[in-house]
């Protein structure tokens, strides 16, 4: 159905309409009476919610806001997420990514190319091999999980992604993909937890904020949290459409005034990193300009099959290495 604005247009009059239409209107009105309170069957109110569904054990509670990594803070090769990821120490740390042997990179790249060439079987074998040979990395498992998810095997994808975050708890990408998979399965509370872990691992990983916003708004009925998340996403990416529209819609629904349009500076458009981002945690308003090159601020691509609520982002959504995701020496 196209625009409905026509009936508000000035000068509209039914006078020229053939008299036959009067009868039509009466007939339509009669039809509409099917929906009158007396006769129209109303959609049933939802029955009381069923007992809480047992869900797998939640991941550890979200970490405290990630501390900006002190300059020169050398760490070992194992990843950690402050406050709860397996093997995390007591002191706040930033995610650390394992060193990449050149052979591992080559094997991984070959498997990625197989995906791009549409050779799924070869890609699967390649990722499995890299996952076995280099158990310190989450990415091969994440890609295996994505292949499973594309085939509709969400349960298998979720299990693989849980293994991925167990390997590399500092991988915001892995946590975010886990959250998205859990959302597809209707495991909304687990999805929140995974997005929170992603944000704790890397507050500048924008898709985690966006996905948290979608989850909070559509599936958890928490528009305030959604607004905060989308604002954070916009601040990180500088993206206007479609997220500005979503923010405007949420503000209107919440009875808030129109948002002040963030300036280019506030959005960090094209600005190089001048300082690490301030601490950010999901559910709290952004604390100002992150001031760093945003990671993973891809333009949405056409919707993937199977679930119109999910858009695959461009292939290299991890973006260029930044202070927090650059390979670390040592280990």
């Amino acid at each position, binding site marked *: *159905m196209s625009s409905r604005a026509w009936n508000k247009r000035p000068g509209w009059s039914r006078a020229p309409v053939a008299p036959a239409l009067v009868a039509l209107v009466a007939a339509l009105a*009669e039809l509409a009476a099917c*929906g009158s309170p007396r006769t129209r069957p109303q*959609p*049933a109110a939802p029955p009381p919610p*069923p007992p809480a569904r047992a869900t797998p054990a939640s991941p550890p509670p979200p970490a405290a806001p990630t501390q900006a990594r002190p300059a020169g803070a050398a760490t070992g090769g194992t990843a950690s997420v402050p406050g709860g990821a397996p093997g995390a120490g007591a002191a706040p740390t930033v995610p650390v990514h394992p060193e990449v042997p050149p052979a591992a990179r080559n094997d991984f790249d070959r498997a990625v190319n197989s995906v791009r060439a549409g050779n799924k079987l070869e890609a699967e074998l390649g990722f499995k091999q890299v996952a076995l040979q280099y158990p310190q990395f989450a*990415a091969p498992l994440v890609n295996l999980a994505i292949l499973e998810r594309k085939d509709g095997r969400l349960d298998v994808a979720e299990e693989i992604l849980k293994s991925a975050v167990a390997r590399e708890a500092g991988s915001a990408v892995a946590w975010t993909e886990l959250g998205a998979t859990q959302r597809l399965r209707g495991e909304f509370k687990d999805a929140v937890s995974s997005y929170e872990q992603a944000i704790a691992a890397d507050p500048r990983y924008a*898709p985690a904020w966006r996905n948290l916003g979608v989850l909070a708004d559509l599936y958890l009925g928490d528009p305030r949290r959604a607004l905060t998340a989308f604002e954070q996403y916009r601040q990180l990416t500088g993206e206007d459409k479609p997220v500005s529209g979503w923010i405007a819609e949420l503000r209107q629904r919440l009875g808030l005034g129109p948002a002040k349009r963030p300036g280019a500076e506030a959005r960090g458009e094209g600005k190089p990193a001048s300082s690490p981002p301030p601490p950010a945690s999901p559910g709290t308003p952004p604390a100002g300009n992150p001031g760093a090159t945003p990671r993973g601020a*891809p333009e949405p691509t056409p919707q993937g099959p199977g679930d119109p609520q999910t858009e*695959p982002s461009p292939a290299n959504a991890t973006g260029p290495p930044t202070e927090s995701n650059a390979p670390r020496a040592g280990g």
Partner: protein
Amino acid sequence: MEDFLRVARVAPESKARVNAQYDAATGLLTLKQWDRAIGVLEDFRRQFPQHQLQPEVTRKLAVAYTEANRPGEAAAEFERIAANPAENHAVQREALMQSADLYAKAGNSARAMSMLEKFVGTNTTPVGDAEEARQRLADYAAQRGDATGRDRWYQEIIRVDGEAGSQRTERTHYLAAKAQLALAQPARDAFRAVRLTAPLKKSLVVKRDALERAMDGYKRAAGYQVAEVTTAANYEMAELYGTLAKDIMASERPAKLKGDALEEYNSLLEEQVFPFEEEAIKAHELNAARAKDGVYDEWVRKSFEALARLKPARYGKTELTQDVVTSLE
């Protein structure tokens, strides 16, 4: 055992032969030599048709055929047990169900249905078991493309559940809700099939009646307050409204309307379908609101998909996921 069998061979006319053959069969069953036992028991049946041990032979054959993975023949033996008036009711009842299962396993759905029909005819209680049997009968009818038979069983399921009183269980309630949902489908299809032709006033009356029948069916189904049935019914009701709106907009235009008059007619139609679109959105939103209570079934998902199309500013928000991660670190 071989001694028993030898008796049967060397002294076929002796009185001892009867007991020897029966004991041999029993021994072969104990040794799990099913095919040999079946041979001896079938021979016993032929040789001594009036013998008092025949009911026992039938029981043993039922076991032997089942164990030998010969479900069709086993089903026939259980059918004999069920038909024996000397057997007590509990045994007959169990044998009927076993027979139905085994005929089903053997791919003989006609005989399976016959056994199930006997079961529901002679075992009206417990209500739960009888309702399960009716459900199976409805499924068989559906598989055979017998819509009338299927709907007759659905009606029975609903009637019995409604009259079950204290014997009503969550399961019978669920089966009745699903049956009611299934019964609404033909009315929905009939509604969809009504074409809106000129003169619209006349065809709208037919469409309206079809709408009311379909809505009534889904409203009844939702009234059972069974989560997955309610979400399905809500989705279908939303789609009925949406279909009505689409069909009105696509309706045949009066041939005499041209130019401005036709344009205004189209505008008028657009105005008239607006409330139906709103009703569709409301019904889908009822489903979508259930997500936060943990209900996220096929119908809730489909309602979200519909809302993303109908109200994109509110529901068209999309997540970002990776197509492939290209960086190992």
